[in-house]
């Protein structure tokens, strides 16, 4: 459905240097090719700007500086929006209570979960089972918080902000980026599905959203030469001049304008005319849903050396399976975990696997008893930490269906805030107490 006119991208990239396969490293400059390309882009604009467009080189310097630092760890946050049915994904297949509570929807069989013989993997999640067998998945079989809120929006908010605080406006990853990031590198926190993820909302440092990394140009109809080249620096400059606006609406528009041009420059090598110039290093599922393509683009961004620390994306499909669960859930599980397996293979092939950890989460699990064709909102749910450096060991245990809470929901045996605390400390090297309010919650071992 989405298509874009191609001339605009040809025009947008007109001022940028050609990218050719096999282009040598710029010898003797001490710069990586990435930062060389960025400098070239800035230079092309500076010719016309007569030295008056200090804004873009500032951004360029921010990105280049971040790139010059040693390769850093990256967290990818994958959100299963709506509350994934934990009791299907990792199912207590032999439990008679389960079969009684789920006369229509009980999963009958699946590959055994090696860490708890009561549980079996949903057949559609076999890619995740493969990764688990390789020791690359830490499973949280009942993650949540005490007295879970059964509102999608309240519970999701808690997970996004990393606290049971309905009024907090910054995301937990945003607060990490405010500490480990810089004020001129929007790529440090990147939403991969075209709209800012609340977990990445920062108080100070900029973050970016990208729809398609190969498609980021700004074509100006009826303008060419300097009139076109100077347009991006112009909106960048206007944005920068209003970053401090006291009106939140103006400040939001200013932030978007101030950093959109910089994102274009940084991503320019990934596509021409809206077509990707990168080649994935693994086979992704072919699907009309953009999820696998976006993961492939993300792997390419990391391989290009872009200074990314945190990224967020929503998994495909609707997980709020109040009805028709047996039809809907397997498709979504398969596409999600087949894509994540491909992504893992991609970054492994590119030599990036030691730097990347993927967190898979959902705002809650679902009710133990079915409602006929679906399941209503529950409490504790399931989460995963995937990566070459993930400990591969279960965090908390499966509490069983024998002692549900008073509303018939699973009780949590691990707290998402403890998990976040461990990621802050062990993955990002920031003090969890500085990111997570009241973070006295025990932190699990997450890395090998």
């Amino acid at each position, binding site marked *: 459905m989405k298509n874009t006119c191609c001339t605009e991208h040809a025009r947008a990239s007109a001022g940028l240097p050609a990218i050719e396969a096999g282009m040598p490293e710029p010898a003797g400059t001490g710069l990586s090719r990435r930062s060389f390309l960025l400098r070239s882009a800035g230079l092309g604009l500076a010719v016309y700007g*007569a030295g008056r467009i200090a804004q873009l080189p500032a951004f360029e310097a921010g990105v280049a500086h971040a790139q010059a630092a040693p390769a850093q760890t990256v967290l990818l946050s994958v959100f299963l929006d709506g509350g994934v049915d934990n009791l299907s994904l990792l199912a207590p297949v032999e439990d008679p209570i389960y079969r009684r509570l789920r006369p229509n929807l009980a999963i009958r069989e699946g590959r055994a979960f090696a860490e708890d013989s009561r549980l079996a993997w949903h057949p559609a999640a076999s890619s995740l089972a493969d990764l688990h067998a390789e020791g690359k998945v830490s499973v949280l079989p009942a993650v949540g918080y005490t007295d879970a809120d059964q509102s*999608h929006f309240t519970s999701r908010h808690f997970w996004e902000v990393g606290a049971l605080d309905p009024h907090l406006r910054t995301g937990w990853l945003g607060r990490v980026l405010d500490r480990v990031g810089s004020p001129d590198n929007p790529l440090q926190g990147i939403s991969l599905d075209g709209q800012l993820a609340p977990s990445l909302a920062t108080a100070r440092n900029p973050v970016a959203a990208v729809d398609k990394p190969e498609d980021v140009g700004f074509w100006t109809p*009826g303008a060419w030469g300097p009139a076109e080249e100077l347009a991006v620096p112009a909106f960048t400059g206007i944005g920068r*001049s209003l970053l401090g606006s006291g009106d939140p609406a103006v400040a939001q528009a200013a932030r978007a304008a101030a950093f*959109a041009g910089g994102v274009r420059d940084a991503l320019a090598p990934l596509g021409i005319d809206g077509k990707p110039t990168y080649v994935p290093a693994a086979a992704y599922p072919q699907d009309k849903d953009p999820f696998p393509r976006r993961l492939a683009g993300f792997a390419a961004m990391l391989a290009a050396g872009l200074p990314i620390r945190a990224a967020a994306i929503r998994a495909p499909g609707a997980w709020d399976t109040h009805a028709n669960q047996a039809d809907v859930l397997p498709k979504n599980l398969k596409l999600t975990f087949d894509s994540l397996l491909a992504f893992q293979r991609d970054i492994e092939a590119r030599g990036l696997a030691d730097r990347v950890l993927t967190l898979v989460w959902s705002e809650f699990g679902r009710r133990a008893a079915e409602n006929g064709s679906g399941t209503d909102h529950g409490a504790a749910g399931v989460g995963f930490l995937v990566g070459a450096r993930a400990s591969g060991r279960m965090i908390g245990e499966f509490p069983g269906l024998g002692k549900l809470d008073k509303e018939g929901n699973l009780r949590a045996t691990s707290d998402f805030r403890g998990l976040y605390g461990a990621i802050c400390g062990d993955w990002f090297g920031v003090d969890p107490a500085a990111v997570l309010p009241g973070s006295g919650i025990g932190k699990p071992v997450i890395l090998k």
Partner: protein
Amino acid sequence: MFGEEQATRLLWRAGFGPAPGQAAELVKLGLHGAVESLTRPKSKRLVGPNPVVDGGPLAPRDAWGHDHLWWLDRMVRTQAPLVERMTLVWHDWFATSKSVVPQKLMLRQNALLRRHALGNFEKLAVEVTKDPAMLLWLNGTSNSRWDVNENYARELQELFCLGAGRGYSERDVRQLARALTGFRNDWTDSGPTRFRFDKKFHDRGAKRIYGRRGKYGWQEAVRLVTRHRRHPEFMVTKLWGYFIPTKPSAKTTKKLARLYVASERDVRPLLEAILTHPDLYDPAKRMVKPPVVQVAGMLRAVGRGIDTPAWAWLCDSAGQYLFMPPNVSGWDDSRWLDTATFRARWQIAQHICEPARLDGEKGDTAPSDPAELVNRAASFWGSPKLSAPVRAGLERYAADTMATADKPWKASSYPVLAENALRMLIATSPEYLTS
């Protein structure tokens, strides 16, 4: 004070921006007259050319994306902009999506929302409860006396009428769900059909809701919620939030809630109170224009109708594809703009500017003075007010561009190019993206 600036803001907040000359006309009516012209429109007709896309009329019930174009066309051509704007508010409020619901049922719901646009909220809530699109979307027809499905009961309270955790318990969710049982539909090869209430499927037993016991039916259940003591405050603050970015004071909230209850939950008196409130006209309280509002407003400003299907994917990229809100809580009005959706707004401006672009080779000319260039470019959009930092940035752009004209042919051709680019820069400036 109700001048052109205030009238322009009113038209952006309560409609889809001014057509040329419309703000000046509104000023003549004074604040109250202007607001009444919106809340009591004389005509609901559409004026201007019918939409033509790919050489033919729209097929909103069938063609993917044509539903979006069909509604956008109404926003552009309506003579009752607040009716369309409130229909959009209700679409966001009772957010239903064609990700689950067939397009033709989405259009049927849209007609329902438009019928009640300025009407009575309780009637609207009752009608929405039995609306086929909503029955599918929140599983109303999967909710029976044997298999109670909580989905609608929860959102009716949490999102539509009371607010999360305000005055109800999980027990109330489950009991209310029982009271709402009984709706059914059939399935055919062409989709869902024969939506109906079947009392054999309804749980006729006693329920205990908000501490009261009774054999409540589905309409009584809805009225228990709309007559809950916490509903009026929720109602007025949520409605206020669509028009004014800062919360109403406690005193204003109380006053509006009393007005709402006194009118037996009519929406029009509330709208008149909100649209005449001084907070709406505070220059320091701007709001980001929702993408479809901005697109409709740009088309109105340049006098153009729907002539391309591109508006569907462009609005989608900008984060607002009609009939497909992101989830049941609607669009997040606090996060319209980021680096990706900013680019989508740039592309939207391209699609307005491209066919209207100035061409020096066809005899178009432009002034070379930066300030005059900026004024000329702004007039394309109806000369919106530009703040000092934005104007300074635009004039700097014009001056920088002209400074590169080192040959006479450049000095004569660059102004036209710069004016084209300035139209884009104005349309994507923080000023124009907000109102």
